[in-house]
């Protein structure tokens, strides 16, 4: 399937997921185990995406300028910077690290 196909399918699933919450009986989703899985899934996926975007290059693991972005973003978040500032700090850190010779 083309990229457009996957994009539209992802959109359809998103809309269906949101709407499903309005349709199902509350009891079904108000189960502690469902809530816990929905919560751990969110955490696990975001952690995995952070890790892959920092250390993976195709199927290889590498240490490059993106590590500087991770550390700098962590510091910015710890200082309670707003999201957009965190993103800019990440870009800046990666850029500076490359200027200093990082891959």
């Amino acid at each position, binding site marked *: 399937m083309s990229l457009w196909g996957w994009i539209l399918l*992802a959109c359809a699933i*998103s809309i269906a*997921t949101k709407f499903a919450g309005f349709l199902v009986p509350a009891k079904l989703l108000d189960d502690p185990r469902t809530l816990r899985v929905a919560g751990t899934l969110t955490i696990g996926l975001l*952690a995995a995406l952070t890790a*892959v975007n920092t250390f993976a290059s195709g199927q290889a693991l590498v240490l490059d300028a993106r590590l500087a972005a991770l550390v700098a973003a962590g510091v910015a978040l710890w200082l309670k910077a707003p999201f957009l500032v*965190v993103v800019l700090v990440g870009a800046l850190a990666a850029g500076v690290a490359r200027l200093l010779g990082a891959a």
Partner: protein
Amino acid sequence: MLLPRSPALRIALSVSIATGLYGISFGALSVAAGLDVLQTLALSLLLFSGGSQFAFIGVLAGGGGGISAMSAAALLGIRNGVYGMQVNLLLRPRGWRRLAAAHVTIDESVATATGQGDPAEQRRGFWGAGLGVFVLWNLFTLVGALAGDALGDPARWGLDGAAVAAFLGLLWPRIRARQPAAIAVVCAVVTLLTVPFVPPGIPILVAALVAGVLGFAGFGPRTEGLEPDVEPYPAGPSDGGPRSSGFGDPAARQGGSVRRPDATEGDA
């Protein structure tokens, strides 16, 4: 400057501006990941869930295929279903409003609504933040996509670093307690261990599987990780104010229910 009199609408306005603005980073990163401007806009208009949108382009940027990107976005969107149930109990929209409410059910609108105590204010908060974020998020996605198109090589501008920062920023508010932080570390390690052995994109789904199994086995506090990733009410619940419900409320968490205390049984 003219500010709305309703406290919920004032919060909704500031949340909309703050969230809408970071649509710029989504737009730019999406184009850097290989999507064109129209595809980027389609994600913001139709998928309309920041975390899932970033997940979709994050998988593609790492060399993953369309099916992995779609799966990551779908799994990350499951929490929106839980939010939908909560909004349904709070506002009980009917007819076409129900479809519209479902589409703008996102972290920001849910957080703004559940932070209010009065039903009318909850309604204003939900629609104000939902529609406000929708309009500005799409507008700034377009700005970011056009800018990203003009920028060219992503690495030269540190855009790959921006993506790393964006994912850490989305994760951060959900790992304040020790157990969710441990789950995050386990999943990150599992991901990196599988990277050399499977095609790009798959490690993220393996981590999702591990996270799901951990949650099913009872790891992680009841609703941890499900708090909306925005905090429109920085004062917190300590002031005895309107924050009477929602995922962030420790009482609701202990009771094991996301339902408002006054919600009637059997509704929905």
